[in-house]
């Protein structure tokens, strides 16, 4: 079972590179933004993986219970705010894409670059 202990990190690596691939290889701007969202989720997964303690439970203290192991609250705090900030910044990105689409008539990166050159 030892190799399963690293499985979360491998999934993190795969998600990271899937997001990266979407950002660098896809020309469509919406697709790039979805790629960034996947990349972001990979980082969330990395942090939340680190918070888990064997035999632990969520860090909400149970009244009267003794000898309970609690998982690490700190990564959870960071990711909790990051998720909401992430959706707000994604909305900003989408707004910019909408404006690009209205100005150029396309959201494909290479086509907008060509239009810029003309």
């Amino acid at each position: 079972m030892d190799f399963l202990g690293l499985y979360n990190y491998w999934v993190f690596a795969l998600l990271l590179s899937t997001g990266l691939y979407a950002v660098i290889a896809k020309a469509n701007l919406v697709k790039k933004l979805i790629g960034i969202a996947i990349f972001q989720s990979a980082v969330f997964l990395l942090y939340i993986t680190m918070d888990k303690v064997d035999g632990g439970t969520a860090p909400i203290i149970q009244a009267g219970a003794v000898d309970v192991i609690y998982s690490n609250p700190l990564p959870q705090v960071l990711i909790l705010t990051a998720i909401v900030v992430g959706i707000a910044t994604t909305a900003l990105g989408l707004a910019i894409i909408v404006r690009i689409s209205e100005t150029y008539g396309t959201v494909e990166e290479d086509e907008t670059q060509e239009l810029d050159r003309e």
Partner: protein
Amino acid sequence: MITLFAVFLLTLLVITAFGIVRAQNLFVAVMLAGIFSLQMAAIFFILDAADVALTEAAVGAGISTVLFLGALALTVDEERPRPSARFLPLVVVAITTLAVIYATFEKPRLGDPNAPVHMHVAPWYLENTPTLIDIPNVVTAVLASFRGYDTFGEVFVIFTAGIGVMFVLGTPWSRLNADDVPSAETHGLRHHLIPRVVGRLLVPFIVLFGLYVQFHGEYGPGGGFQAGALIAAGIILYALLDGEAAALRAVPASWLAAMVAIGPLIYGAVGLAGIVLGGRFLDYSVLATDPVAGQHWGILLIEAGVGITVTGVMVSVFHAFAARASMR
């Protein structure tokens, strides 16, 4: 056994991510992203992060899909097909993956209680939250009190992003008018009677549940961020059912503008009150004669501020995309 469940879900997560990137149709990609978010929430929950899972649930299931669809309605929903697979990006990505996987061999195993991350600050928080702040949810305690500065920064990021969307789209709050946006007569799901009846029934429950999450955040999973997203989802549901005009009549644009600004103001005012009463910035202990009661007041106020801002920003952004569509 639970570990195996997590492994299974993580495998599904990777498959979904590949599916999202491969989908030519952006609409399909957005729907798969919805499934991706559900899986993330389940994994967060299995990994003991109940608060994070609730946030992902509130944001991913309701708001993120709606925002992406709003943007797709304004752009294209089809990616232009590319004939050749691109070789260079694949090589770059493969090298990155291998490098990251190589780096993970140094990482502590999942759940290792001796991992460096569990050694330093976290035990202090777990040990001192009951005496210093006396609320059960350590995540809320760290979020709102111990690391209040961070959260203050995050609230300002959300505030700024909200203002940014409104002005990039050219739909500031003064231009969001109930008379200008399409009403239920032309838009909304007016012709679907049954979904409309059931949806309307749900709206008050979603808002009520949002308020519960807001004020129960000190005792169970919850808090301002989750509650804000949930209440915003409720208002967005109303807008989907009865048209944006009805939603703007229920929660006028001027209120939304005020809500976006009030959150950081409350947060900053609570911080300054700490200084005025002889403590430090965001030091809630001086807010009441009893330091623990002061902490309770401080957390309650700033969580309310966070919730108000998140609701305001999310609903404003939704209206901005919808209004942009009707401006054409």
